C-alpha cells in the first residue's frame, strides 16, 4: 500500500516535471543562472578576450562608486524614470479620455495614435535622429518657419538638450501603450455611475475628479510600475541616437554597461555595472510593489 502510493506520487512528480521542465530549463539557463554568473564575473578583472581572469573582490564596485560617468548614468536613469512617468501617463490619460468620446472619426485617431508603438526602436531612433538634425532636421526647419531662428540647434549634439530630446522621443514611442491601458479602463467604467453622478449634479471636471480618477487609480499604479521598470532597463534608443553622448549627457546604466563590456573589453567592470543595475531595479520595483500591496490591503484608498 505504502509502496504503491509512493509509486503514484513518483509518477505524479514525473508527470508534473514533463510539463514544467522544458520551460523551466530554458528560463533557468538563460535568465536565472546568468544572473548569478554576472555576480561572479563582477568580482574579477577580465577583458573577455585574454585568458587573464584576476580576482579583485569588490574592487570593481569600489571603482564604480568613484566613477563620475557611472553616477551621471544613474542620475540620467532617475531623470528618465521621473520624466517618463510625468509625461507619458498624463498625456496617455488625456488621449484615452478623447478616444472614448462619441466623436465621428474617432477610430481613425485611435488607429494612428497607436502606430508609434509598432515601429522597432532602431527605426524610431534613426527617424528621430534625422528630425533633430542641425542642418536639415524637421524640428529646426519648423522653428525657422515660425521665426524662432534663435532656438535652432543640434538637439542631440548639445549637452543641455540631448537628454530632453531623447526623452521626448521615448514618450512619443510609449505613450500609446499607456493610452490603451487607460482606454480599456475607461470603457470598463459602467455608464450608470456617471448617470447617478449627473443626477447628483456633478458634471465635467468634478465628475472626472471624483469619479473617473479614483476609479482609474489601479490603472495609474500599473502604468507607473511598468514605466518604472521599462525606464530602468532602457537601452536601444539611446544606443542608436546618441551612444550615450555628448559627454555622457545621455548615458544610462544599461548603455554604460554595454560600452564597458563590449567596446572597452572590461567584462568584469561591465558585470559590476550590470549587477548594480539589477540591484537598483530590484530595490525600486520591490519597494513600489510592497507599498502598493500594503496600500491595497489597507483598503485601497491612497
Amino acid at each position, binding site marked *: 500500500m505504502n509502496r504503491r502510493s509512493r509509486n503514484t506520487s513518483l509518477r*505524479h512528480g514525473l*508527470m508534473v516535471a514533463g*510539463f*514544467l521542465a*522544458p*520551460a*523551466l530549463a*530554458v*528560463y533557468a*539557463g*538563460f*535568465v536565472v543562472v*546568468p*544572473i548569478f*554568473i*554576472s555576480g561572479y*564575473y563582477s568580482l574579477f578583472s577580465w577583458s*573577455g578576450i585574454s585568458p587573464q581572469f584576476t580576482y579583485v573582490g569588490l574592487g570593481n564596485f569600489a571603482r564604480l562608486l568613484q566613477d563620475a560617468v557611472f553616477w551621471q548614468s544613474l542620475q540620467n536613469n532617475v531623470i528618465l524614470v521621473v520624466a517618463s512617468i510625468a509625461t507619458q501617463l498624463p498625456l496617455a490619460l*488625456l*488621449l484615452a479620455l*478623447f478616444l472614448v468620446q462619441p*466623436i465621428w472619426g474617432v477610430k*481613425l*485617431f485611435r488607429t*494612428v*495614435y*497607436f*502606430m*508609434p508603438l509598432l*515601429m*522597432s*526602436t*532602431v*527605426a524610431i531612433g534613426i*527617424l528621430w535622429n534625422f*528630425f533633430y538634425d542641425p542642418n*536639415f532636421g*524637421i524640428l529646426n*526647419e519648423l522653428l525657422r518657419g515660425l521665426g524662432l531662428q534663435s532656438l535652432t540647434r543640434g538637439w542631440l549634439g548639445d549637452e543641455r538638450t540631448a537628454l530632453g530630446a531623447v526623452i521626448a522621443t521615448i514618450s*512619443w514611442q510609449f505613450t*500609446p*501603450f499607456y493610452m490603451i*491601458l487607460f482606454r*480599456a479602463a475607461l470603457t470598463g467604467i459602467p455608464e450608470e455611475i456617471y448617470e447617478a453622478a449627473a443626477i447628483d449634479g456633478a458634471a465635467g471636471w468634478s465628475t472626472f475628479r471624483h469619479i473617473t480618477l479614483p476609479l482609474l487609480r489601479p490603472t495609474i499604479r*500599473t502604468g507607473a510600475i*511598468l514605466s518604472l*521598470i521599462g525606464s*530602468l*532597463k532602457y*537601452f*536601444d534608443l539611446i*544606443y542608436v541616437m546618441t551612444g550615450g553622448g555628448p559627454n555622457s549627457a545621455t548615458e544610462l546604466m*544599461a548603455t554604460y*554597461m*554595454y560600452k564597458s*563590456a*563590449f567596446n572597452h573589453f572590461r*567584462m568584469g567592470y561591465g558585470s559590476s555595472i550590470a549587477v548594480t*543595475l*539589477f540591484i537598483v531595479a530590484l530595490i525600486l520595483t520591490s519597494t513600489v510593489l510592497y507599498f502598493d500591496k500594503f496600500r491595497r490591503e489597507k483598503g485601497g484608498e491612497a
Partner: protein
Amino acid sequence: MRKAARGPRAVLHYGKRLLILAPAILWLLVTGYPFVFMLQTAMKTPFEFMLDLWGLPGEWRLDNFSSVLAGGFISYFTNSVAVSVFSVAGVVILASLASYAFARIGFRAKNLLFLIVLAGMMIPVHITLIPVYVMTQRMGIYDSLTALFGPYIGFSLPISIIILTEFFAQTPKELEDAARIDGCSHFQTFLRIMMPISKPALATVSIYNFIYVWNEFVFALVLISSPGKMTLPLGLREFYGQFTVNIPGLMAAIFLAALPVILFYLAAQERVVRGLTAGALKG
C-alpha cells in the same frame, strides 16, 4: 428625463468639441506625420529632398526601395522571419505546457515556482548579457541565428506563462473532467481539450512575442556580428551607416522594415492592440 437634460448639454458639447478636437488633431499629426514623411521622402531623389524638405516627390519612384532590397534587406528580413517564427513557436509550446501545470495540476512548491517565473518580468536583460555572450561563444553558436533562440524564449516565458496560466485557470473544468473520466491522461487533456479552446489566448501570446522578437535589438547586437546573420534591427543600423547622406534611401529602409507590422496591425487591429498590452491588462 435624460433627453431633457441632454438638450442644453449637447449645445455646450458642440463648442467643447472644437476645443478638444484641436489638440487631438495636433497629436494626430505628431504621431501620424512621421509615417507620411517616411513614405513621401522614400520616393524622392536625394537632390529633390535637399531642395524641398516637406514637398511631395515630383515623380513617385520606387528606386530607393529597390536599392534597399538589393542592399541586403532581403537577407535581414528572412533572418528576422526565421528567428521570430522559431522563437514564438518555442515560447508558445513551452509556456502552454508549463501554464497547464500551474493552472490545473497540484504539486509542491507551485506558488514559489510561479513567483520565480513572475519575477522574470522585472529582470533587466543586461544582467544576463555578458554570461549569455560567453556561453554562446563556448557552445560554438556565436554569430548564428540559433544563438538568439535561448535568450528570446527565456525572456518571453514569464509574461507568456502569466497570461496563459490566468486564461487556463478561468476556463471551465467540465470538459476536462469528462475527458479525465474517459481515461485521458493530463497530457491528452492538455492537447485535445485545453489547446483548442485556448486559441484566443495563444494568439495574444504569439502576437506579443512576435512583435518583441521582431524588434529586439540588444541580444542581436551582442550575439551576431556578420551581416549575413543580422536581423532587421541590426540591418537597419547597417543601412544607417551606409546611407548617412542618402536620407531618402534610409527612409525607404525604415519604412520597409516597419511595413509588415503595420500591415498586420491594419488587418487585425483589435488583436494586435490586445496582444501588445496583454501583460499589463491581465496582470
